[in-house]
């Protein structure tokens, strides 16, 4: 026969917890009470962290910031599947994952208040925030590749948005991962918009998950507002990666309830009714309902938790605002050893500053 079908590919959808908090018991991950509580606590803390950041920004106490409102199950659920020695590569809307990874929120505030010093003392293997879209994908593939070369059972995880799948770096990273079977888990936070551009204008593909199939590995679409589904898919992908099974792309289907950043006005490009529909699928609310059904959550439990987390945030903000970076830090970290031109420039600036303060 001159013409026949030689390939059929498919993409799975995974959802475990519905918006009412009902769980599919056949798919429910085996998590103990303590872990479930930690996942819930981290999602709530992430939301409070974002709320506080938005308030600080409006008061002029913080600069441009991208909140993750509505995406907490994606970031927190996936990060809870990681081992501490796995490598983590964020974009810039992964505060939920960063908090889950044990990064003190004080450091996150220091960063968003405008200082690179946030990285001084940050727990290792939590790589720097990547602002240029998709560029970090290649780094995660390289790190995973290095783990493979060094024969260490360590995986890397990388986060990016739906918009990133249009960039060349995404495709190069996916291709390298496929060719070299690197232990990389790609978490695509499909929040439906790249600033103003809706997902359907970003790519003609039906799903983002299917892009993995072209590069020779598995892609799965999960309910990104379902922390259990995100956790389970990520856990399975990480285990596969560490045991030599290669990479996985997980498209977390979610929604950015807020603006792209504090500089953005989403009313220019989307209808409130759409936002309202997605609010009904709130990832925190459904986890709360799930915990209530398990007898873990109650209103008292919530009140106590909010009080505790609010105090934690207030303390972190206070410490972050008190932090004053030294001017020499502009020059100190550019090279391992400061070249003479930088030394001259640093001295020039310090002399100028002391002249100004004396004057």
């Amino acid at each position, binding site marked *: 026969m001159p013409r026949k079908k030689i390939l059929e590919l498919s993409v799975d959808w995974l959802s475990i917890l519905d918006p009412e908090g009902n769980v599919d018991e056949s798919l429910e991950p085996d998590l103990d009470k303590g872990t479930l509580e930690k996942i819930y606590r981290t999602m709530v803390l992430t939301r409070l962290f974002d709320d506080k950041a938005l308030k600080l920004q409006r008061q002029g106490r913080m*600069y*441009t910031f991208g909140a993750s409102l509505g995406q907490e199950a994606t970031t927190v659920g996936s990060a809870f599947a990681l081992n501490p020695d796995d490598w983590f590569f964020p974009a*810039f809307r992964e505060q939920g994952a960063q908090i889950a990874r044990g990064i003190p929120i004080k450091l996150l505030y220091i*960063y968003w*208040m*405008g*200082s*690179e010093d946030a990285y001084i003392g940050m727990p290792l293997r939590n790589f720097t*925030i990547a*602002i*240029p*879209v998709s560029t970090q994908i290649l780094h995660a593939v390289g790190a995973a590749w290095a783990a493979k070369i060094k024969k260490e059972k360590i995986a890397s995880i990388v986060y990016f948005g739906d*918009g*990133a799948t*249009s*960039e*060349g770096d995404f495709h190069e990273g996916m291709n390298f991962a496929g060719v070299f079977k690197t232990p990389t888990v790609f978490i695509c936070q499909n929040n439906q918009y*790249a*600033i*103003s*551009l809706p997902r359907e*204008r*970003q*790519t003609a593909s039906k799903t983002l998950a299917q892009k993995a199939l072209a590069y020779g590995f598995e892609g799965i679409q999960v309910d990104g507002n379902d922390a259990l589904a995100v956790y389970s898919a990520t856990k399975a992908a990480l285990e596969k990666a560490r045991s030599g099974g290669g990479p996985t792309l997980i498209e977390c289907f979610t929604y950015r309830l807020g603006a792209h950043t504090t*500089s*953005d006005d989403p009313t*220019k*490009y989307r209808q409130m009714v759409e936002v309202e529909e997605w609010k009904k699928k709130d990832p925190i609310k459904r986890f709360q309902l799930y915990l209530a059904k398990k007898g873990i959550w109650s209103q008292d439990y919530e009140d106590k938790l909010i009080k505790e987390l609010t105090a934690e945030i207030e303390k972190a903000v206070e410490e972050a605002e008190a932090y004053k*970076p030294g*001017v020499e*830090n*502009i*020059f100190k970290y*550019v090279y391992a050893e400061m070249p003479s*031109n*930088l030394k001259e*420039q*640093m001295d020039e*600036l310090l002399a*100028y*500053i002391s002249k*100004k303060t004396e004057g």
Partner: protein
Amino acid sequence: MRVAKLNMVQAINLALHEEMERDPDVIVMGEDVGVDGGVFRVTEGLLNKFGSERVIDTPLAESGIVGTAIGMAVYGLKPVAEIQFEGFSYMTIDQLAAHASRIRNRSRGTYHCPMVIRSPYGGGVRALEHHSEAVATFYIHIPGMKVVIPSSPYDAKGLLISAIRDPDPVFFFEPKRLYRAFREEVPEGEYTVPLGEGKKLTEGDDVTLISWGAMARVCLEALKLVKDVSVELIDLCTLSPLDDKIITESVRKTGRAVIVHEEPRTLGLGAEIIARINEKAFLYLEAPVKRVTGYDVPVPLPKLEDYYLPDAERVADAIKEVATF
């Protein structure tokens, strides 16, 4: 001709409206330029007026935007491509250095590449990493590229119109801290400010002060601090090709020069200007030429950003130092 008081965003927006109206081959493309009207609202209203075939919201891919714009330009359109922030322009260097800038030369004039890449640049707005950089040097260094930076709404409109009509690729950088900093009279309708020509913002005899873009405004502030020195302030407007004539004539007159730029010092345009002064006006010099620049470091995040950026006092100190040498 009607004249309105416009800020730089409005002036650029007006230039785009008028050029799209005049020439159906002019198209605007980039991330969020259509429905959103651009993250700085520079392309506001274009989509409604000219439709989605000429005002194109592209997928998120800077190399894709510039690479496809090259194909459009070669075919016969005049794309005006927006790169949302200068820190994302690095991904365009491959397409610009490897292709756009050399298509005319490579094909011995058979093909050419009339396109404009617009991007905001520079610090002073308390932004995220990669959103506060002055990156013109990279593009000045590409033979075949033109690089333009306006410092006022009037010039922004006139220079952008010239850039759109230019037969070669032009990188048009917009000083984002000046986008809404002030208004001035901008005529409606056609006028151009020529590429390749600097202009004197003040006339003077003691010191030549050379700058462009946002730093040209800082230089104007600095002049208030050195009232006893007669300064000739030159706004280069086009960084490539450089207006040798205006620099040489002024330095031959004053014998003293200060160059101010936001870009890092090493290999910033100041270095080239000093080399040209050495070649064309060395024997007229009364003092070593001085540079006030960004430092050779990544632009710091907001908490320390002000220390990086040249300010009026640093510029004034340099003018005094050169004037009294």
